[in-house]
C-alpha cells in the first residue's frame, strides 16, 4: 500500500490528529463505530474472497504486523516493530501513572513502558475483567491460561514502548482502504486488509509520542508543571 499526500491531507481536513494523549470522552462511541466499520469491511472482504476476488494479493504492498487485543484487530507497520518478546517481561509499576501503563521493564538494557493498547484506545477504562487478565498475565498466573498475552516492542532508537497484546496474528501485506479515523493513533485514515480480515492501522510514532507526553505530564512527574 502507499500513502499519498492526498490521503493525509484528507485526514487533516477532516479535523486533523488530536494533539491530546487522552482519548476524547466520545472515543468509546467512535471506537464502536469504527469496530462496526472494520467488521463490515471484513464481511465484505469475506464475501468477495468467497466469490474469488482477491482484494489483497499475498506478498503485495507494505508489511504489517497484525494482532488482537480486547477484541480489536490492529496492525502496525512492520518497520516500527522492534521485537516480539518470547514471554511476558517482569514489570514494575510506576507511581503516579495513567491506567493504561501496565508497568516498566528492562528491554535491551533500557527501561521502557509497557502499555495496554485497549486502555489507550479508550475501550478498557471500565473493563475490570481486562485489568484482571493483565494482572494475572503479568504476575505469571496467566501463563497457565489458554491464551497468555504477548508483548510487542515498538519504536526507534530514541524511544521504545512495549504493547501488551492478546495475540499476534502474523504479518499481512496489505492494501489500504481509506476511512476517517479521528483517534489519536490511527494512521490517518487506513484500514489494512489481509488474511481475510480488516485491521485498524496504528501509527506507532503518534502512539509513542502521545503516551510519552502523557507519562511526562502525569502528577508527580518531574516534568510536571514545567
Amino acid at each position, binding site marked *: 500500500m502507499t500513502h499519498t499526500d492526498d490521503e493525509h491531507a484528507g485526514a487533516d481536513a477532516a479535523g486533523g490528529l488530536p494533539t491530546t494523549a487522552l482519548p476524547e470522552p466520545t472515543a468509546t462511541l467512535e471506537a464502536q463505530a469504527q469496530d462496526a466499520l472494520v467488521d463490515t469491511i471484513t464481511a465484505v472482504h469475506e464475501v468477495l474472497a468467497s466469490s474469488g476476488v482477491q482484494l489483497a494479493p499475498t506478498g503485495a504492498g507494505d508489511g504489517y504486523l497484525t494482532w488482537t487485543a480486547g477484541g480489536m484487530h490492529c496492525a502496525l507497520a512492520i518497520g516500527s516493530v522492534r521485537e516480539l518478546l518470547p514471554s511476558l517481561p517482569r514489570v514494575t509499576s510506576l507511581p503516579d501513572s495513567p491506567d493504561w501503563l501496565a508497568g516498566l521493564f528492562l*528491554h*535491551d538494557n533500557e527501561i521502557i513502558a509497557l502499555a495496554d493498547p485497549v486502555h489507550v484506545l479508550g475501550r478498557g477504562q471500565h473493563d475490570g475483567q481486562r485489568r484482571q487478565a493483565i494482572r494475572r498475565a503479568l504476575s505469571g498466573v496467566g501463563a497457565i491460561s489458554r491464551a497468555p498475552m504477548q508483548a510487542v516492542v515498538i519504536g526507534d532508537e530514541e524511544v521504545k514502548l512495549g504493547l501488551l497484546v492478546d495475540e499476534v496474528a502474523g504479518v499481512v501485506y496489505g492494501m489500504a482502504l481509506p476511512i476517517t479515523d479521528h483517534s489519536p493513533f490511527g494512521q490517518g485514515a487506513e484500514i489494512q486488509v489481509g488474511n481475510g480480515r480488516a485491521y485498524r492501522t496504528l501509527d506507532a510514532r503518534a502512539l509513542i509520542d502521545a503516551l510519552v507526553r502523557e507519562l511526562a505530564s502525569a502528577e508527580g512527574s518531574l516534568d510536571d508543571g514545567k
Partner: protein
Amino acid sequence: MTASDESKATVLGLSLRLLWFAYEAFRDAKSPDVSANALRQMRRYAAELGTLYDDPTVDDCAALCTAIGEVIDATLAAPTKPAGLADVLATALTYLRQRQHMLQDGEQPDAQVGALLPPIMAQLQRCGARTVTLPPMLLAAHDSGVFSAPRAAGGTGGLHDHLDHVSPALRRKFLAEMPEDVTQLRQVLLRLQEHPADEQVNRDGFHVAHKIRGSGGTMRWKSIAGLGQLLEDIFETLPTLQADPQPVLAVAMRLVDLLQVARDEAFRTGQEMPAALLEAQRLVQSLHLGGASPASAAAVTVVASTPPAAAPIPDTTRDEATAGLRIEAQRVDALLSKLIALSTRGQLMHSAGEDMANMLGELSRSVERALTRVQTIVDGDAKSPATAGAQEFTSSLKESVEDVGEAVTALRRVAFNIRQAAQEQDVLTAGLQQDLLHLRLVELSTLLPVIETTVRVVASEQGKRVRFTVRGGETAIDRDISDALAEPLYQLARNAVTHGIELPEARVALGKSPEGHVWLSAHHVGNEVQIEIGDDGKGVDLAHVRAAAIRASVIPPDAEPSAVNPGLIFEAGVTTWPQADLAAGRGVGLNQVRTAIHSFKGSIEMTSTEGQGTLFEVRIPVSLRVARVLLVEAGGQHYALPAAYLDRVIEAPDDIGTALDAGMLHVREGETTERIPMRSVEELLSHGRVTRPHHPVVVIVRNAGKRFALLVDQVGEQRGLMVRALPAYLRRSVTRSAAITAGGQVVLMLDIPTLHRRITGVRSTGAPIRQRAPGADAMPRVLIVDDSLSIRRTLSEELAQDGLEVETARDGIDALQTIARMRPRVLVLDIEMPRLDGFELLKMLRDSRQLEGVKVMMLTARTSADAQAHAKMLGADDYVIKPVPISELAQRIHKLLGTDDTFEANQT
C-alpha cells in the same frame, strides 16, 4: 639549555601563571572592589615578571610587562575602565605565554612572532600605556615588511591560531598514546632497581624519556617535555653514578608518576601542569646529581622529604603486577550493557521455561485423563467382546496415549533443565557484573600527586611550611567518580593551606610547631568512601562566617549567634576572604565544592575548632553505577532504598496505627525518646490509598542530619545493584532512578530527600520555607482534631506543603494531650468525635485558659445556625462546613494565622 636556564624558565613560568590567576580573578570579578584588588595583584606580578626578563632576547616581554603595568595604573586612576580591557590584557598575556613556551624550547622570536607585538602594543596604548617601545630585535622584522599587515585587534583566538600551529587533534593524539611510554618507563625503572648496572635497560629508558621530551616539545606540552628532559638526564647520569642508585631510581619513579599526572591533567582539561614540573625539579635538585655533594646526602634528603606515611605515590610494584592490560572505561561499560541485556534475556528464558513447565503440567493431566478413559474402553472391550477392528483400534489408541504421556514426562524434564540453567545463568551473570564493575575501580592514590604538589606549591607561594600526609591511598573508587572528585579535593587541599595553616611565625607564637600539617585519609564505609581532609591551622572564625553570611543574605542581619554555624560557608556567596581569592580558589568557593560532590550523590560536612584546625568529611559512593540498597516491599511492590541513608530497621511498635495517624513515631534512644516524622511508603507513593500491612516494619532513614521513619510491609536484604536513571518521561519526584537486579528486574529507587521533603513540608529548593529561628514559635503550628483519617491526612499534607508544622489528633482526649505538648496556634476542630467531642473540648480549653493566643476553626458537617452560634460563644474564630475544598480550607487557616499573603504568593 643549562640547568640554571631551565630553572629560570620555570620561575618565569610560575610568575606568569600567577599573573594569569590574577587576570582571571579580574576578568571574573563581580564587584568593583574585587576587580580593583585583582588589578593591583596583576600590577605587582607584572612588575615582578618584568624584572625577570633581564636578557636582551626577551626585551619584547619586558616591554609588554611595563606596558601592562602602565595600563593598570591608568585604569586604577581613571573613574571608568577602558572598553575591552580584559580582552586586551588577555591578548598581551597570551603573547607572554607563547614566548614562555619558546623560551623553554630555546627558540628565538622570528618575524612571524614579531608581527604580533605592534598591534598588542597599540591596543595597550589605547588603554593608557605611555612608554610603548618596540624592542630592537623585532625592528628587523618590522623593516622586512612583516609589520605592514598587523592583525586586527581581536581576542586571544587569533593569536593562538598564529602561534600554536600544532593542531589540537595531534596534541591530543600524543597524549592518548603516552600511557604506553609511561608504562614502559615504569618497567625500565623496576628492572633497574633490581639490576642497576643493566646498560641495555638504561638505554631503553633513555630512549623513551628522549622521545617524550622531543615529541612533548613539538606538541607544545611543556611540562611533559620538561619531565621527559629530567628523566633523560637521570638515565644519562646513572651509568656513571658512583653512589647508591636506589634513591635516584626512587626519584625517577616519582617523576614518572608526575609525568602520568601531568599527562592525565592535559588529557582531561587540555591544560599544562607546571606544578608537576616544578615538583619534579625540586626532587631532582634534592639529589644534587650535577653538584659535588655525595649521593648519600641525596638519599637522606629524599627520605626526609617523603616519609613513608606521607608517600602518596601509587604502589608501583602492584601496578606492575596488575599492569597486564589497559582497558578503556567505555569498553567495560559496553560489556556491562551487554551483560545486562544478556541477563534480561536469561530472565525471559526462565519465564519461558516456567510457562512451558506449566503447560506441560496441564498436558500431562489431560493425557492421564485420556489414558484412564482409554483404559475403561479397553476393559469394557475385554468384558463384552467388540469387533476385532475396534479392539485393535482401542489398544493402539492406548499405546499412542502412553507414548504421548512419556513424551510429556521427557519434556517436563527438559523444561526443568531449562529453568535450572536459567537460574544458574542468573547467578553467573550477577558475579560477572560485579567483576566488571570492579574493573572500573581505580585507586584514590591516582589523584594524590596533583593534590600533594598543589599543597607544596601553594605553601611555598605563601611562605608557609606544610607537611602533607596521606592514609588509605589504596582506597578504590569508580573511575567516573575519581575524575569528578579531583577538582573538589584539589580545592579543599588549597583551602586548607590558604585559609587554615598559619604562617610559621604565627604558629610559633601560638605554641604550635612552625610546620603545619594537612592530611588526607580515605577508607571504605559500606558502599561509600569517606575521605577526610584536615589541617591543624586556625580553624573557622565564626564571627567572620556570620558577617559573611549576613553579607550574602543567607541569614538575617539580626540572626542570633546560635543560628550561625560553620556549615554556612558552604552557602552560595558566603566568603570570608575579602579579596579576589587567588590562591584558594580562582573564584571557586566551597559552594561549588559542595555542588560538585552532591552531583555525584556525595555529601560534605565540616567541623572546625577555632585555633585547632578544620576537618572536611566527604562521603561519596564507590560507584554511581552500582549502589548498595535495601530492598523493601510496600503495597505489593518492591522498592530499593539507598543504604547510604539507612539509619536502622526496627519492628513496628504495637501502637503503630496511632503513630501512623499522628505521623510521628517515638523512637527510644538510650535514656531519651525522640519523636520523628513517619509515613508509610505505600501512602507516600499512592496518594493516600493504603492497605495497612499486618506486620509492618519501620525503616528509619537519615537525610541532611534529620531522621524520619518509613513504614513498609517487608524488608529484604541489602544488595549492591546496578543503578540506572529512568528516562525523563518515567521519572517521578519520588522515584528518579531504578536499580536493576541480576535477573533484569527493574526496582524503583526511593528518592529519600524528596520523600523527606514530602513528609516535613520543605520545598523542593532544599531550603525550608520559613527559617526556623531559635525561638519557640518560628513555624506556625496547627493541630487538626478530626476522627476522619482522610481529613487528617490530606489537610496536614496540604498545610505541611505550605511550611506549617502540623499535628493531628483523633478526638478530644487525644487533642488535650497534644495541645499541652505542642501549643498550636491554630486548632482545626471537628464537632462529632468519639470520647470527647469538639464542643466539650473547646469548653474545657476555654475554662482552663488554654485558648489564649490560639485561633479555633470548627470544621464540621453540622450546618445549623444553633451549632454555629454555640461555637462562636465558646470562642471559635471560624466555622467551616464540610465538605469543603482542601485548598479553601488551607486558605482560611492561613487567614487565621495571618499568613495568607505568603500563602497566596506560594500558590501563584
